[in-house]
């Protein structure tokens, strides 16, 4: 197979016969030198590269390639294939793929990318299957393929009244020439029968009946259960430990030190305890006494970061990320200048299923069962850390009890693999909730020092933001950056975005809508402050801002949260829609109740949201209702799940705003469980009304982009209700009482 890089990237299709008849069909994104190379590719003999299997008995199986973390992808991607294949959803069985990078492109969950990356390829997979089944029928009947139609898994030749089920055609279809995926005819959207309908999650029945599905449910014969204690200071190392005492505990089979490296996202030093049951291992851990070499970061703290940020804010920024016009001159001549400091804290992912992984090393081959968003990265990490070949490692992708970005990192996978190798038996590693919360890759905290100016007509003419974050030199810590094209860049003539960074010894990473989940709060709150200074309605002020696009093209945008791809027309569309649906400005609200608005573009989605909130005189915040308007393009693939995801993301944002904060003291995480890191509870849940603005754009993802706007919409509602401007999170640290 040619893997030269300077050649066309194209999708090709493989087809092969199933042993015992039937067909299977797969696609691949590969680099190919020429059409000859494609033609020379022998008929695939790797059964694993299939998306579609049809047996002579008409059992239709569609493979779901990506990890399911609660985003609904195990249902959604097969829906697309099934619709173009033209089968009834009730006749389809879904099978989760294991990691197979040779046959499935992009087996990961992250960045709300499943829809934009797979929409057309999955349609082509289904359409190609349908075309081959038609070809088989046409050949059988000696009629032109153009006279054949399909419906519900049957090929028809109407004029002669003949029909054959797909199962009857499958074996022959597998011998037909595979169509060119680039040109295979696709349905017109009006012909969709599954796409656009409410399809419940394919694992729902297994979930409601308690069948084993998740990583934590894996059982391997002969396995031991492991706990792993790491240094509470990130990256600290074991100096010594009372292993003999631990080994003497009831039910404990082994206890040993695992030598780790220094990379916070790799294998870290710690003590593994293996027991006959997880409870035995965990109980023995209470006896464990470790002397740690805590390393260089044992003195870092949230308080010290805040103090350092305040100091940096008084100094010239370390670097400029963007400068348009002359912000300083514009601020000097502005009619009204607003200056504000914003802060958002570290946050934990806290998926409900604690990190876990089962690993078994046997005859030089490692088999791994993991809830992971990035199985390919996990395999690479295991291979590099343990000095193995990736081809000797098999990864079974287990359903994840939540992801939110946590399982982009495979630290628990490499731990399980290392422990299993050292133990010489299959091992199921399971973290405690405390392990999970105290060894996360946190959403990084951020500090923003802003200055904005409006002119005598209430127009926003100048904006300066000194963003103080974490990193070294020109490099931001993971997910601690900001896009130079992030709104409102390009919509204010005089605009500056500067950055300074402080070194950080806390692991950080992507949390649902990374960077956007903090930046949107800052930007949309500060816009609200400027609207107030201008004496304008917050939505009207935003409309005027959106109409003020500067001629310069976007620059420095990053995929996801960077701001590149922001479209003022699409944003205006959702802003107008949410204003209309929420009855913005059309009702008089009592003192203590207010509406706030926020919008944000991320992960290719444009979202505007309105929150109505009530603040009691004592300062207790109640979110009364949320209205959401989103633009994710021309097609909402699974509307039922789309609403579920959007409600979930909005409520997730509210939970973050209300009470979530990870605090670092003495180099370690203070919070440990849900008593001091609160998730939303049912009594706090407002109605969330969702509207999609269907536009003529390619369909895009929904796991993330509806989250960011709700945070500023809530804090802006609190301002409307009380006159109190919230410039730092979480809300639980504010006195919002009024009289």
């Amino acid at each position, binding site marked *: 197979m040619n893997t030269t890089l300077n050649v066309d990237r194209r999708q090709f299709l493989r087809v092969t016969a199933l042993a015992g008849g039937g067909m299977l069909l797969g696609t691949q994104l590969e680099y190919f030198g020429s059409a000859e190379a494609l033609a020379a590719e022998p008929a695939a003999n790797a059964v694993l590269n299939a998306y579609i299997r049809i047996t002579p008995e008409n059992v239709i199986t569609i493979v779901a390639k990506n990890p399911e973390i609660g985003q609904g992808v195990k249902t959604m991607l097969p829906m697309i294939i099934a619709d173009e294949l033209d089968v009834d959803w009730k006749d389809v069985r879904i099978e989760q793929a294991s990691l197979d990078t040779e046959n499935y492109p992009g087996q990961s969950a992250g960045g709300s990318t499943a829809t934009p990356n797979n929409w057309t390829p999955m349609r082509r997979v289904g359409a190609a299957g349908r075309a081959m089944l038609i070809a088989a029928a046409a050949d059988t009947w000696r009629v032109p393929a153009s006279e054949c139609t399909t419906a519900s898994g049957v090929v028809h030749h109407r004029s002669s009244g003949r029909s054959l089920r797909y199962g009857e055609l499958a074996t022959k279809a597998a011998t037909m020439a595979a169509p060119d995926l680039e040109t295979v005819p696709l349905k017109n959207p009006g012909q969709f029968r599954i796409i656009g309908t409410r399809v419940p999650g394919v694992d729902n029945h297994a979930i409601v009946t308690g069948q084993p599905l998740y990583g934590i449910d894996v059982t391997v014969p002969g396995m031991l259960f492991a706990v792993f204690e790491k240094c509470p200071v990130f990256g600290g190392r074991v100096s010594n430990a009372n292993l003999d005492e631990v080994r003497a505990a*009831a039910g404990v089979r082994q206890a040993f030190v695992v030598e780790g490296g220094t990379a916070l996202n790799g294998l870290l030093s710690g003590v593994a305890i293996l027991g006959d049951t997880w409870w035995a291992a965990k109980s023995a851990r209470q006896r464990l006494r470790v002397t740690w070499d805590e390393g260089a970061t044992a003195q870092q703290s949230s308080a010290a970061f805040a103090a350092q940020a305040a100091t940096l804010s008084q100094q010239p920024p370390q670097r400029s990320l963007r400068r348009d016009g002359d912000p300083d001159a514009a601020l000097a001549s502005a009619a009204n200048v607003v200056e504000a400091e914003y802060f958002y804290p570290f946050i934990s992912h806290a998926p409900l299923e604690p990190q876990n992984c089962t690993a078994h090393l046997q005859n030089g081959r490692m088999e791994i069962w993991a809830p992971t968003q990035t199985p390919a990265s996990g395999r690479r990490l295991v291979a590099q850390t343990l000095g193995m070949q990736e081809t000797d490692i098999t990864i079974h992708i287990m359903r994840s009890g*939540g992801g939110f970005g946590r399982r982009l990192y495979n630290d628990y996978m490499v731990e399980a693999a290392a422990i299993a190798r050292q133990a010489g038996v299959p091992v199921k590693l399971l973290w405690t909730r405390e392990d999970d919360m105290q060894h996360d890759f946190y959403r990084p905290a951020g500090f923003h020092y802003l200055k904005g100016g409006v002119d005598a007509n209430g127009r926003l003419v100048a904006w300066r933001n000194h963003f103080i974050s974490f990193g070294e030199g020109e490099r931001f810590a993971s997910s601690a950056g900001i896009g130079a094209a992030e709104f409102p860049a390009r919509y204010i003539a005089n605009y500056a975005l500067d950055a300074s960074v402080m070194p950080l010894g806390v692991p950080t990473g992507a949390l649902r809508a990374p960077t956007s989940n903090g930046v949107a709060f800052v930007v949309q709150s500060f816009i609200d402050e400027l609207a107030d200074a201008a004496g304008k309605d917050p939505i009207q002020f935003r409309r005027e801002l959106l109409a003020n696009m500067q001629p310069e093209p976007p620059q420095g945008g990053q995929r996801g949260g960077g701001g590149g791809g922001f479209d003022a027309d699409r944003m205006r569309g959702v802003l107008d829609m949410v204003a209309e649906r929420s009855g913005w400005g059309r009702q008089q609200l009592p003192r203590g109740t207010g509406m706030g608005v926020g919008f944000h573009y991320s992960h290719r989605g444009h979202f505007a949201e309105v929150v109505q909130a009530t603040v009691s005189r004592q300062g207790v915040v109640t979110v009364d209702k949320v209205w959401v308007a989103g633009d994710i393009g021309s097609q909402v693939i699974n509307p039922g799940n789309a609403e579920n995801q959007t409600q979930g993301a909005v409520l997730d944002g509210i939970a973050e705003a209300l009470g979530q904060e990870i605090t670092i003291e003495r180099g370690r995480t203070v919070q440990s469980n849900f008593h001091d890191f609160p998730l939303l509870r049912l009594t706090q849940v407002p109605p969330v009304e969702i509207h999609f603005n269907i536009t003529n754009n390619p369909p895009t993802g929904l796991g993330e982009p509806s989250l960011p706007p709700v945070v500023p919409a809530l804090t802006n509602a609190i301002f409307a209700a009380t006159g109190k401007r919230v410039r730092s999170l979480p809300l639980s640290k504010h006195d919002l009482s009024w009289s």
Partner: protein
Amino acid sequence: MTVTFTLNGRSTTVDVAPDMPLLWVLRDVLDLKGTKFGCGAAHCGACTVHLNGAATRSCVLPVTAVAGASVTTIEGLSSDGTHALQRAWEEVDVPQCGYCQAGQLMSAAALLSRTAKPTDTQIDEAMNGNLCRCATYLRIRQAIHRAAEMTATEAGGTNPGGRSGGSDL
């Protein structure tokens, strides 16, 4: 030590450490994986089972505390997944990641066994100890109403809660 209790309608005896929480007896000794571990401190409700019909957090319940008692887990809520709540959960398409849902269902079943047609407020109170990290809460509430409605409609049948699998409801 040896502990005998009724599990999903069947007498069950285990020989385990006396401080072992019921959760780990269920999951690691009896291989019933439906009951989930979320926090180990009764904060999240993922481990909810019925102890003599009452919703109970099994992660902090020593197995000795269930000696002689009747325990129902998600596997025993119905023998074939047809409890009104299970059907409603599927119809409403409640789950996202699904990890908390067994605990949600067990709390909801205990509620419906006491209060056939609960109000929103009663639902919120009964379910407030069950966290859903994906925040499927609006659908959880909707599905409980739907199950109550199904049960009322189907009343007159012999088994409003679906075919019993030893449920102590």
